């Protein structure tokens, strides 16, 4: 029998929501890592029992957690919970993210632009996003703040920076926004193991075609009011990017204003906001079986991060953008002032595609019919930071 497992990261722990294919009755497990900010939880497509977690705290810093049994138990990779470690230097350092500025990278980079225009040292703060490999459960990528991309090939026990990203040339001009300079989006091209897309607030989107050794900005066609130069190579505040596995060259972007589309792997973008009531927002995703069906959650503005008129609505386009319809059935139609963060929307791959999103008010909503009707799975979690889904056919 088919089932789904929804992995929810919140400000005060992680939760696992499970249901069968009907997606009507749900089991809620958690909180795991209670009291910690869980920026992201994501399962490996290569092994559904393997799940990676970014666990972080202003007091105690960054931890990586891993489950090998589908979320029942957790441990820091390489550090069994109960064992007394052997003597000698540690072999596993799952929480160490050390920027690689060695000459061997070819382009050592030490600083980026700061709010006052000066150059500021790169400082690790947290992991925003974990992206397991599509084919190997032990390979996983991490997008971090201050923006950089790391990879582990031993199940999260050790991490190494793909330094070509920071060092490709525009790095010194990257500048944090008020939310920090985080690498929040990592997309692994299912058709090309050497191609990866990433996005950074507020540097923009970048692509590698050689497995991460070299990178280029892919921001042509993006327009941002705060950037006078219409041809600016970097500096755009990209909120999130999504693709469909059958059309990996077609990208959809929710930007800080504007919903954008590229049909050539990011080489050029054009706006598809169309008839959206507002095109500010964070989350964006694509129907599991319809590459031209996309979902966004419009938010009033960059000054007021809540839905228009207090009505929480998802908007769906079945034409790849421009023509959007509101989806409201089952969602609050008044007095709703929550936000939906960039990693807080996901889809399952059951025949009738399910779509899920979590709010900063602690609700997780689900639809089992691609958006026509929504119901809350849970209402009172801590503020939701991320939502991912695993599908079991």
């Amino acid at each position, binding site marked *: 029998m088919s089932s789904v497992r929804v992995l929810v990261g919140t400000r005060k722990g992680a939760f696992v929501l499970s249901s069968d294919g009907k997606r009507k009755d749900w089991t809620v497990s958690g909180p795991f890592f209670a009291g910690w900010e869980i920026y992201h939880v994501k399962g490996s497509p290569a092994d559904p029992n393997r799940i990676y977690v970014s666990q972080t705290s*202003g*007091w*105690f810093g960054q*931890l990586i957690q891993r489950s090998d049994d589908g979320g029942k138990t957790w441990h*820091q990779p390489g550090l069994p919970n109960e064992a*007394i470690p052997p003597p000698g230097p540690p072999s*596993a350092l799952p*929480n160490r993210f*050390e920027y690689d500025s060695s000459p061997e990278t070819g382009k050592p980079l030490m600083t980026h632009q700061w709010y006052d225009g000066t150059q500021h040292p790169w400082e690790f703060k947290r992991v925003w996003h974990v992206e397991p490999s599509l084919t190997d459960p032990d390979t996983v990528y991490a997008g971090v703040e201050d923006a950089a991309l790391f990879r582990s090939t031993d199940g999260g026990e050790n991490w190494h920076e793909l330094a070509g990203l920071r060092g490709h040339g525009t790095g010194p001009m990257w500048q944090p926004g008020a939310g920090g300079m985080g690498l929040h989006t990592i997309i692994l091209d299912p058709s090309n193991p050497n191609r990866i897309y990433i996005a950074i607030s507020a540097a923009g989107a970048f692509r590698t075609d050689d497995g991460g050794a070299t990178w280029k900005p892919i921001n042509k066609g993006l327009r941002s009011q705060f950037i006078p130069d219409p041809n600016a190579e970097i500096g755009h505040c990209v909120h999130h990017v999504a693709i469909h596995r059958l059309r990996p060259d077609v990208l959809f972007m929710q930007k800080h204003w504007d919903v954008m589309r590229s049909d050539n792997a990011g080489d050029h973008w054009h706006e598809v906001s169309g008839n959206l009531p507002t095109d500010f927002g964070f989350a964006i995703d694509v129907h599991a079986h319809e590459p031209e069906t996309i979902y966004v959650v419009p938010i009033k503005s960059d000054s007021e991060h809540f839905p228009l008129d207090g009505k929480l609505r998802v908007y769906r386009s079945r034409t790849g953008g421009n023509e959007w319809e509101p989806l409201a059935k089952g969602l609050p139609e008044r007095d709703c002032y929550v936000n939906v963060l960039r990693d807080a929307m996901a889809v399952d791959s059951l025949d009738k595609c399910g779509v899920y999103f979590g709010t900063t008010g602690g609700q997780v909503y689900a639809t089992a019919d691609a958006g026509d009707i929504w119901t809350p799975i849970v209402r009172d979690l801590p503020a939701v930071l991320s939502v991912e889904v695993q599908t079991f056919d």
Partner: protein
Amino acid sequence: MSSAGNVRAVTVQVALPYHLRNLAHVEGDVLLEVRAPVTLRAVLDALEARYPMLRGTIRDYATGQRRAFLRFFASETDWSHESPDAELPEAVAAGREPLLILGAIAGG
């Protein structure tokens, strides 16, 4: 107290904040064998060697410095700004009182 070669080792108590006790899977204070001289650095090194899941949670990985929202107390004195290589008060070094590691109360 035990000895290895000519270096004394003592049993030191460390009181951890709630979340670090959970991470380390311990209840109450932890007991550590620490070779003299018993300094803050020596105690933290011993703590992290015995409980590697705590690495990076008390001292920043990159700098080795105390994390900003943690404090160290020994014999009712704030040791947060002392040199990590200064010897801890005798009562703590002898294991009669714990080294306290506290998280900032406000925030969250």
